């Protein structure tokens, strides 16, 4: 008996999908569009986050050493600090060359300084994120043998703030878009269930249990929602894949050096999975909620 009921439900779902093909296709299309918009935005947000992270990782702390510093000991100490990713030694000669290079045309200003180089030796320290830079800088400042610490005060704080803002904004927008997608999915399903209100009441009068009536609608909603979400995720995924190829090509020209498209499956797969679940769950939930009022007969 239970087995029969399950079987009837599956058959009715299949039949209904075939018979209401256009209604279902239109609904799945609407769901696809709304999920696609959400997916595209999430990719943008993920990449923007990556970009900010990359920019942050470019922030350097310049540690100028006093002449009597114990270079290698100091280097190990800095290296062992939390959040430090690399420590590079820049000799005073190297520093002078870099300066000359940066002055370009006006490098002759520095002629004659080679013999009496006024620049100090230095470490160039990179941190895992801009967040921790000020703290690290403050700590290093008090190490013995350290003369001065510089890290572009001002700029770093700005980058950190912009990064935080971007995070908040993109979370907010993502939430809004997700809400919009939920609204679109549920309303679509609701419109398509309303068209079949009579069917529900007839079954109820014939003595059908609520679940007997509901199950095919639930399944149908999940299938329509899932189909829409799959279409969206596949479409946006393909477009994104193509984009990463293009970017890789352009990057060789170093035009987009600051953008490394996120391709880590550990980031992208949960995203895709989440969107699929969104489609399926909202499709099903939309069905159940929409049908509820018609069941009260």
């Amino acid at each position, binding site marked *: 008996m239970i087995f029969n*009921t399950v079987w009837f439900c599956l058959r009715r779902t299949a039949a209904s999908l075939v018979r209401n093909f256009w209604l279902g296709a239109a609904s799945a299309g609407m769901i696809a569009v709304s999920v696609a918009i959400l997916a595209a935005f999430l990719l943008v947000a993920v990449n923007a986050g990556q970009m900010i992270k990359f920019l942050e990782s470019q922030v350097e702390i310049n540690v100028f050493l006093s002449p009597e510093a114990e270079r290698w000991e100091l280097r190990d100490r800095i290296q062992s600090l939390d959040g430090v990713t690399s420590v590079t030694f820049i000799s005073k000669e190297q520093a002078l060359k870099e300066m000359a290079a940066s002055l370009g045309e006006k490098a002759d200003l520095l002629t004659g300084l080679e013999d009496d180089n006024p620049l100090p030796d230095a470490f160039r320290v990179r941190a895992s994120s801009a967040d921790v830079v000020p703290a690290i800088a403050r700590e290093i400042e008090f190490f013995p043998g350290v003369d001065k610490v510089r890290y572009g005060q001002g700029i770093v704080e700005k980058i950190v703030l912009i990064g935080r803002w971007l995070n908040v904004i993109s979370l907010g927008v993502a939430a809004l878009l997700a809400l919009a997608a939920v609204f679109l999915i549920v309303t679509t399903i609701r419109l398509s269930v309303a068209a079949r209100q009579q069917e529900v009441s007839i079954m*109820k009068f*014939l*003595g*059908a*249990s609520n679940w007997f009536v509901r199950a095919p609608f639930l399944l149908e909603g999940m299938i329509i929602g899932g189909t829409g979400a799959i279409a969206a995720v596949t479409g946006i995924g393909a477009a994104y894949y193509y984009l990463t190829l293009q970017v890789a090509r352009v990057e060789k020209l170093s035009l987009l050096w600051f953008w490394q498209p996120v391709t880590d499956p550990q980031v992208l797969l949960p995203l895709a999975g989440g969107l699929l679940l969104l489609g399926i769950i909202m499709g099903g939930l939309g069905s159940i909620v929409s049908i509820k009022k018609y069941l009260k*007969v």
Partner: protein
Amino acid sequence: MLHMFNVTKIYPNNVRAVHDVTLRIRRGEFVFLVGPSGAGKSTLIKLIYREELPSYGQVYFNGRNTLRLKGREVLGLRRSIGLVFQDFRLLPQRTAFENVALALEVVGASGRQIKKLVPEALKRVGLGQKGYCYPSQLSGGEQQRVCLARAIVRNPLLIVADEPTGNLDPDTAWGLMELLEQFNREGTTVLIATHAWDIVNKMQKRVIALENGRVVRDEERGSYGHDL
């Protein structure tokens, strides 16, 4: 089997469709419900299977107050009744066969039972060849017969038919009345709202006449009470 006490039904727009009706139908009876258009016959029937709830009074089915049933008990009530709706209420997207099968599916019958019982029922109402048709592909009378097939296929305790022969020619109508009488002889209780005075007069069954929502006549072996 069916017992109504002082039942009154007032629709939300203040129309009093059924007025203080008290009646009792015993197991195995065959009852005609007659009365002019708008007398309240359909409303009375809707009160039985709980499409409408009474404004006042009680309805008892098999000794249970239908107002107090809840959840699965309502299903039990509806499953023991075979219904013919005045407005057919066939699912437009299912074939005649599937519409009849639905009555069995909702009670969890097996596929084998369905394959056996549904064609039988369709044959009994004279639609053996039309099972594959959708309601929109059937004539008015054929749709009405699909409804009847759906009502009898479960072999219910009580058959309640609202105007089951309105779209049928006299021969077909007679055939179906005889079919219902046969069910009745096998123990099924039958309640038919109808305007077919010739059939009512000829069959000499119990007749309950409604007028303006009130029972104005209730006779064993009665007639339509209409002299043409």
